[in-house]
């Protein structure tokens, strides 16, 4: 008998290695992916009872190879080649690093939508089953299976190649950016549940952290890869304090900071300091990590170094400006120069007429600043508007409660 979690960890780390070897031998990574999934499922079923084999990687590879061969057998033209592959002895364990990295880069291909890229990455690199990914996204397994299969079709059509990208290649920065973005989205998806009451979901952010660690280990010279990992660790550190006993949202200013994970904060901070020692202008992940680090450093909310956060948001706006970044800068500005200054920045944002993607957040920020400024009626209006537009239950609960408090103070109830 071996512990289930131990086996799951082992399977997840072996999955991309086995897929890589099988893909190299038979030529097509996408064709091999189903066979590897079946082998993983078989291992997850048998190993807890029969024990982990002496050479788990060889076991998985042999099992996946056999399944792959079975699949290909009906195609008579390929039969001879596949039989030969199946009879080959399992190769000695090799460093799987290159294959994992190549898989990650292939799954995070610019030809895919972010949602498809995340699903494919979780399956091929993370070793999660389609059922687990479907559970995480609260969709039926059949829907997720179709999404993964469509992603594969699109990759084939775009003739993506399975190879380790050369850090010197002209398209390397763009491809790395895509990988970082997909991992960032995966983390956020897990950290801020985008919908539903957050029941029985696979922890997407844990998986994102694991993959970011691997990426950083294999590309230690890439400062933004280190920055993204630092950002994840510094954000993850606050998770224990972020929700109340019933899953309700607790905002940063009201969190019990003694419940933050000091070890994660120390690790993230050290990683971040290392990246700033290098030359070059910091990119969006390093800057976001720096902001997270400033928050994490404050023992109490009122100790927060807001001028520094304001400066960092200013830099972030230059590097990767978006209405969301400006919203956050408005909050920081309000903390430094007062709510009126923050509100003026929001007016400026509205006047630009640019689309504010996260409409409920814009209302929520405005409501918060108006409340601080003492304009209760206007704040109430914007809290209500924000509550009506959010699709997250914990957020809706939080915003409705804020509105109710203001309503009470305004004399709506005794």
């Amino acid at each position, binding site marked *: 008998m071996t512990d289930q979690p131990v086996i799951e960890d082992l399977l997840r780390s072996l999955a991309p290695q086995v897929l890589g070897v099988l893909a190299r031998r038979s030529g097509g990574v996408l064709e091999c992916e189903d066979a590897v999934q079946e082998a993983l499922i078989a291992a997850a079923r048998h190993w807890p009872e029969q024990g982990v084999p002496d050479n788990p990687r060889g076991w998985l590879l042999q099992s996946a190879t056999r399944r792959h061969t079975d699949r290909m057998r009906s195609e008579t033209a390929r039969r001879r080649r596949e039989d030969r592959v199946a009879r080959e002895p399992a190769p000695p364990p090799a460093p799987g690093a290159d294959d994992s990295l190549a898989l990650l880069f292939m799954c995070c291909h610019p030809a895919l939508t972010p949602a498809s890229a995340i699903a494919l990455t979780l399956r091929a690199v993370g070793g999660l089953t389609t059922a687990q990914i479907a559970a995480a996204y*609260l969709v*039926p*397994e*059949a829907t997720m299976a179709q999404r993964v299969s469509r992603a594969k079709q699109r990759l084939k059509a775009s003739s993506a190649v399975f190879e380790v990208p050369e850090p010197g290649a002209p398209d390397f920065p763009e491809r790395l950016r895509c990988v970082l973005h997909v991992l960032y989205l995966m983390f956020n998806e897990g950290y801020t549940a985008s919908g*539903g*009451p957050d*029941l*029985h979901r696979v922890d997407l952010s844990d998986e994102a952290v694991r993959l970011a660690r691997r990426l950083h280990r294999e590309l230690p010279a890439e400062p933004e890869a280190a920055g993204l990992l630092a950002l994840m660790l510094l954000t993850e550190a606050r998770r224990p304090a972020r929700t109340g006993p*019933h*899953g*309700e949202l607790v905002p940063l200013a009201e969190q019990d900071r003694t419940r933050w994970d000091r070890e994660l904060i120390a690790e993230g901070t050290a990683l971040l300091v290392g990246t700033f020692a290098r030359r070059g202008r910091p990119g969006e992940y390093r800057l976001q990590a720096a902001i997270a680090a400033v928050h994490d450093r404050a023992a109490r909310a009122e100790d927060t170094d807001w001028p520094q956060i304001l400066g960092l948001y200013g830099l972030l706006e230059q590097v990767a400006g978006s209405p969301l970044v400006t919203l956050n800068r408005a909050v920081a500005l309000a903390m430094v120069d007062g709510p009126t200054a923050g509100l003026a920045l929001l007016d400026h944002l509205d006047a630009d007429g640019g689309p504010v993607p996260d409409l409920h957040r814009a209302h929520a920020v405005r409501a918060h600043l108006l409340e601080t400024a003492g304009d209760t009626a206007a704040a*109430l209006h914007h*809290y*209500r508007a924000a*509550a*009506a*537009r*959010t*699709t997250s*239950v914990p957020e809706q*609960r939080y915003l*409705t*409660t804020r*509105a*109710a*408090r203001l*309503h*009470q103070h305004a004399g*709506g*109830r005794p």
Partner: protein
Amino acid sequence: MPRYLLMVNHDGGAVEEPMDAWAPEDIAAHFDYYAALTEELVASGEMVRFTPLADPRLARIVRSDGVSAPVVTDGPYPESKEVLAGFNLVEVDSEARALEIAARISAVPGPGGIPTRQPVEVRQVMTDLAFDL
């Protein structure tokens, strides 16, 4: 086992005021009641899916004849009293059990802890071959 869709309606219950006019502790009790019930039904294996719907002001109605451009209007109908707030898909032994769960949902506390008596429509779901095979 049969599956039932339990459709929770916003209006038409015992509560007239919008939730943001309730006392904060009543809001907390309301959400906690729902969370506890959902957790219980997940644990018993009866809850297939719990899906609250976003605010009805965000809803749109689409009409199309398949030829001309689709007509998109705000929805649901403004004169309609009852608006779907969300739905639960449960898999239970009997219709009686589905009605029992619907009753628990309808009794979710409102202002002052008094049950809201939200109307819950119970509809059996047709067999879905794609999932059951």
